[in-house]
């Protein structure tokens, strides 16, 4: 399957943090043709294992991209059948009005997030963002029927399928970090063209958006020698400063800072340079908001690198991605893995 097609399918599957069963099953099935062994754990983390084709010792590498997504949860149903809700993960309340959603109750129900008509709002009120606690979802059902189908605590996801913008840009929801899952899939294909030593675990992690919890567990289980976290970063956005964002068209972004292993990161950059793959550098002075933060300190410690893709309007329903970046990042990652044969440990020596 082509990467864009896979991304389009992945973002249609619900997987709000903590409720990743469906997306986890789909990712498991997607990994199968390209891995020797695929399994899931109790947390819905998916592990795909690919053994090296080259003789000699190589590292055990773990890649991690999260499969969970931000979303909403039913908080209450009022006497007229309107659903109030709260957010799971960081959601800007200002994107919510008029959004189309699916409520995952006993059945999957369509609904819209409505609001008070503007002419019935005071002047001061109209200057403020509508707070999420004042918003409701209209599912078009009477309260009795609705309460049969929907319970407090049911998950709500956004309806926003992948669309093409001007080539090679695509737009949709939950590209953070389903694009990372696609990138791992593309890396598997790239690795099939190369020879590499050691073994590679492709882990689609759960609960990243609520504290990288899937990464904590999966890194402990895999016990890797080297970690590669894969996530999104901010793409250039007109209303954000240049220092906080990255050009959308250069290529993957390699993060530097205390959360990343300096020597291993140097090696990653050298592989990029040697193969003519353009990249950008993101400076992360503290902990990154990615799985890298948890992979790095698992058990006795895991030297970790972080590869990112610039994404515009992160955590909205119209996240914008340059699809070419995924291909470039997958090629870089595969070449990086293949670069580590016997004696790979040397590159980690301080």
């Amino acid at each position, binding site marked *: 399957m082509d990467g864009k097609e896979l991304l389009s399918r992945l973002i249609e599957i619900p997987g709000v943090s903590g409720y990743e069963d469906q997306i986890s099953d789909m990712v498991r099935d997607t990994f199968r043709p390209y891995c020797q062994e695929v399994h899931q754990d109790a947390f819905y983390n998916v592990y795909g294992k690919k053994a090296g084709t080259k003789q000699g010792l190589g590292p055990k590498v773990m890649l991690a991209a999260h499969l969970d997504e931000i979303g909403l949860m039913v908080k209450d149903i009022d006497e007229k059948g309107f659903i109030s809700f709260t957010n799971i993960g960081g959601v800007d309340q200002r994107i919510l*009005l*008029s959004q189309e959603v699916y409520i995952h109750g006993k059945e999957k129900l*369509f609904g819209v997030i409505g609001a008070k008509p503007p002419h019935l709002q005071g002047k001061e009120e109209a*200057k403020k*963002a509508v707070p999420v606690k004042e918003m409701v979802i*209209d599912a078009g059902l009477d309260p009795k029927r609705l309460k049969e189908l929907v319970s407090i605590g049911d998950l709500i996801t956004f309806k926003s399928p992948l669309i093409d913008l001007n080539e090679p*840009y695509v737009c949709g929801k939950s590209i953070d970090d389903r694009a990372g899952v696609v990138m791992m899939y593309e890396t598997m294909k790239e690795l099939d063209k190369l020879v590499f030593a050691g073994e590679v675990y492709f882990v689609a992690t759960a609960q990243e958006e609520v504290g990288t919890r899937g990464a904590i567990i999966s890194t402990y289980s895999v016990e890797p020698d080297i970690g590669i976290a894969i996530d999104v970063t901010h793409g250039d956005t007109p*209303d954000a400063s240049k220092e906080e964002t990255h050009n959308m068209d250069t290529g993957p972004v390699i993060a530097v800072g205390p959360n990343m292993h300096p020597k291993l990161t140097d090696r990653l950059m050298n592989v990029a340079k040697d193969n003519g793959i353009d990249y950008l550098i993101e400076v992360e002075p503290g902990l990154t908001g990615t799985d890298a933060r948890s992979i790095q300190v698992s058990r006795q410690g895991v030297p970790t690198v972080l590869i990112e893709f610039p994404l515009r309007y992160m955590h909205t329903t*119209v996240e914008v991605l340059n699809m070419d970046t995924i291909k470039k990042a997958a090629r870089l990652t595969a070449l990086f893995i293949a670069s580590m044969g016997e004696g790979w440990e040397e590159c980690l020596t301080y």
Partner: protein
Amino acid sequence: MSDLLKRLVSAKGASGNEDEVRQLIIEEITPLTHQVTVDRMGNVIGYKRGSVPGKKVMLCAHMDEVGFIITRIEENGMLKFGTIGSIDARILPSKRIRIGNEGIPGVFGIKAIHLQEPAERETAVKAKQLYIDIGAKTREEAERKVKPGDYAVFDSEMVYFGEGKVKSRALDDRAGCAALIEALKADCPFDLYACFTVQEEVGIRGAKVAAYNIKPDMALIIEGTTCSDVPGIEPQNFSTRMGMGPAISIADLSSYSNKKMVAYLIERAEKASIPYQIKESLTGGNDAGEIQRSRGGVMTSVVSIPCRYIHSPSSVMDLEDFNNTIRLVQEFLKGCEAL
């Protein structure tokens, strides 16, 4: 009936750029009328000759919708825009639109929540600060797809959901257009003018010239109106209520309805057991405002289909209300000429 509605809401028609919806309406009403004309402003008028000449009755629904117009292409390939009609800018972030006649996809971006100051998240977004992203890297790239002056509408298809509900953009007033077209299928003895107006959303401009040309004796306007029976609104501020039938206006900001027509609408509704409601607020305006004051004055009244979240990509309407509106208009056409 809802197939017709679906076709109508699928056609783009921001005020001033109604071509697509106009062509569709012409196709739909040609078999139902004796003559179809398009006037100088782009209003479509279907004429149905009566067996007993005399009174001229005008039915009216506006075909335009709220939307956007591209004002400028920035160096970085982003588009600036103006709003056509009344749209609360707070609904715009993270929504999709279709630009130009080809429907080039674009989105209203907003910087990620991670890059916002806490106070920003509490502040209403203004249209001025927003921009449209079509995925163009440069002005030149954007210019290959769009140009200043291109119109745009929300990207939102009709969805059937809940119990007999539909969600779409442009229900105001394609629902009225669809109801009018359906009502046209009924026979009536007098000369009937089915009028589909342009530019209602930018100041009731099409109806003004249409009424002048038609010179009707009476006009019934079929409108999609605010339905405010939603949380946070006190019942005394409800304008209409969903599922309670077509709303008959006594008055709104643009016109006072003719009392005889209102009484007749109520009489016909009760006789035919059609649920109806009286529009409870004086807010809003519609084509009646201009038609009523055309030439020496025209008797007007308004029947509205309640639409929640009007002027948004996700307006919601009850199909029963829609069907009952068609029935009420057809009932009204039986004998209204005697008023």
